[in-house]
């Protein structure tokens, strides 16, 4: 059994409220149905019905985890999420499989590259984008401890970086930081992009560029404080995401900069449209989202950053 299967098995054993639903998507939890009995329900290829049922179950005091391909979950069942989960604020945890670039060979119908924007636009709904299996399972455990509506971008890859502490679902995480303050680049990312951003940061540091890499596992609600700090400290902020630039983390960071009147240089490295389907390493290369693309892109951005002293927040507000 994988770590997620163990979590589901153990949580169902101690918490009678927990229900696990899937729209015929069970590759990552193939071994749990026998342990869950009637608390595992496969509704077939019926995402809307699954979300409506989850709301009905949750309305009777249950905590429901639903699973479907991220694109179908967030798009086909969007109105069911909005009407039946978000409006009544019911504890339904919605796990979307193969989000972002992870749909690799499936093509545009399966590309959930607008899911973060859709879900963070809904009042009451959290958005959790773990970087690896360990973080996914820890975050799911925290959600089950304190159940609330949350969309989760599933990532099942092995742990990609050394973490000092357990994931918490309200803070950004500084993954690496060349200098104590004022790095040249604040690099913000989340989910499956973290290992690639980390590699890019390491390359840049080898080339003498100081980088603070911040992973944002929670995209809604956002840890605004860490973003404000990054915007104020760094010469330039770059957001790397396997998501459409409009409506994803880049948009969220821009919103925060405007609201806090921070005149920062903020650059997106993300998607502007559906990407060519293929195997993941090639997808990352052609979309410019692998480390070998991210690092030189940031160097170019840094060189172009005409750096006559930009005004500080204090100067703007005075």
């Amino acid at each position: 059994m994988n770590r997620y299967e163990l979590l589901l098995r153990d949580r169902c054993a101690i918490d009678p409220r927990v229900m696990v639903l899937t729209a015929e998507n069970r590759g990552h939890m193939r071994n749990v149905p026998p342990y869950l009995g009637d608390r595992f329900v496969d509704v077939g290829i019926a995402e809307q019905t699954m979300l409506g049922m989850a709301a009905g179950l949750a309305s009777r005091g249950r905590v429901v985890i639903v699973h479907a391909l991220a694109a179908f979950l967030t798009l086909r069942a969007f109105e069911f999420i909005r009407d039946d989960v978000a409006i009544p604020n019911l504890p339904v945890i919605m796990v979307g499989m193969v989000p972002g670039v992870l749909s690799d060979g499936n093509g545009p119908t399966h590309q959930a590259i607008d899911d973060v924007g859709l879900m963070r636009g809904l009042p009451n709904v959290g958005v959790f984008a773990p970087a690896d299996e360990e973080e996914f399972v820890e975050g799911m455990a925290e959600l089950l401890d304190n159940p609330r509506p949350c969309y989760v971008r599933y990532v099942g890859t092995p742990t990609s970086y050394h973490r000092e502490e357990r994931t918490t679902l309200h803070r950004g995480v500084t993954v690496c930081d060349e200098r104590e303050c004022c790095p040249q680049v604040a690099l913000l990312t989340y989910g499956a992009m973290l290992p690639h951003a980390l590699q890019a940061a390491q390359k840049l540091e080898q080339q003498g560029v100081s980088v603070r890499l911040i992973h944002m596992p929670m995209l809604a609600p956002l840890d605004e404080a860490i973003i404000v700090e990054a915007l104020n400290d760094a010469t330039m902020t770059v957001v790397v995401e396997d998501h459409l630039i409009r409506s994803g983390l880049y948009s969220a960071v821009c919103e925060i900069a405007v609201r806090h009147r921070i005149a920062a240089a903020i650059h997106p490295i993300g998607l502007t449209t559906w990407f060519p389907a293929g195997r993941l390493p090639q997808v990352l290369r052609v979309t410019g989202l692998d480390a070998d693309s991210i690092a030189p892109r940031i160097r170019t951005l840094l060189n172009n950053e005409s750096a006559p002293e930009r005004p500080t927040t204090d100067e703007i507000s005075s």
Partner: protein
Amino acid sequence: MTYDRGRCEEISIRVREHILAMSTDGGCFTGASLSCADLLVYLYTSYLNVRPDTLTDPNRDILLLSKGHDVPALYGTFAELGFIERERLANHLDCNDHIYWHPNRAVPGVEFHSGSLGHLLSVGMGMALSIRMEQRASRVIVILGDGELNEGSIWEALQVAHALHLDNLVAIVDRNWFQANVRTEELIPLEPLDEKFRAFGWNTARVDGHDFDALHACMSSLPIGTGRPTVVIADTMRGKGVPSIQERADRWFCNFTHDEVAQLTDELHGNAVATLVSPTLIVR
């Protein structure tokens, strides 16, 4: 619950008065409300195990109004049976209360909000599944519109409910033969409707939705607990009880003058036929 036809008839007249009273100063979906008024009155007086003092009892029966726009019939029924104060109906469309065109949980007795069609069959299935796991005898009744059956999510849910053997679930179709602005059979023909549900593995029953005795006979003999969900197709009439607006495609949403409401109320009581001057609403 004891069935008393006389009581049903008395209450249903008063519920229709409430519906007409809400059909002004902004208006409401009068035609659809009148078609399901008798159904709701029968269910709440004679069938459902739920009362104003058992609204949090986990053993209560659940009714979900999936075609939420007929909620004036539900508000009226709730007011007559003591779920809410009658005076509260005067707050219709007042932002300071929650008595608006679709049901919501802020009104005691409403089990789940609706508005967008095609949702509450699935929600009701989740409740029915939970109730079965809780080993309770509660039943879940979902009122569907016939126009609502156009929604694909209904047919998705029908398959899943059959697969899960949700035999404590009863869908009741308010078969008033109209969708918003047009007769169902002229737009998206539904018949033979019984056969469609049967082909999806549901028990079916068909009944005159305005005949209390027939409703009682039908609902008392539903095959609950026999491994399949059940659908009752209740044949009804849009605008039932008020001849001037009965079976009128253009009297779906109505916003009458106060004088018209008074005349229509007279008409409801069998007096002179109303003279309507308010414009009819034809969207198509």
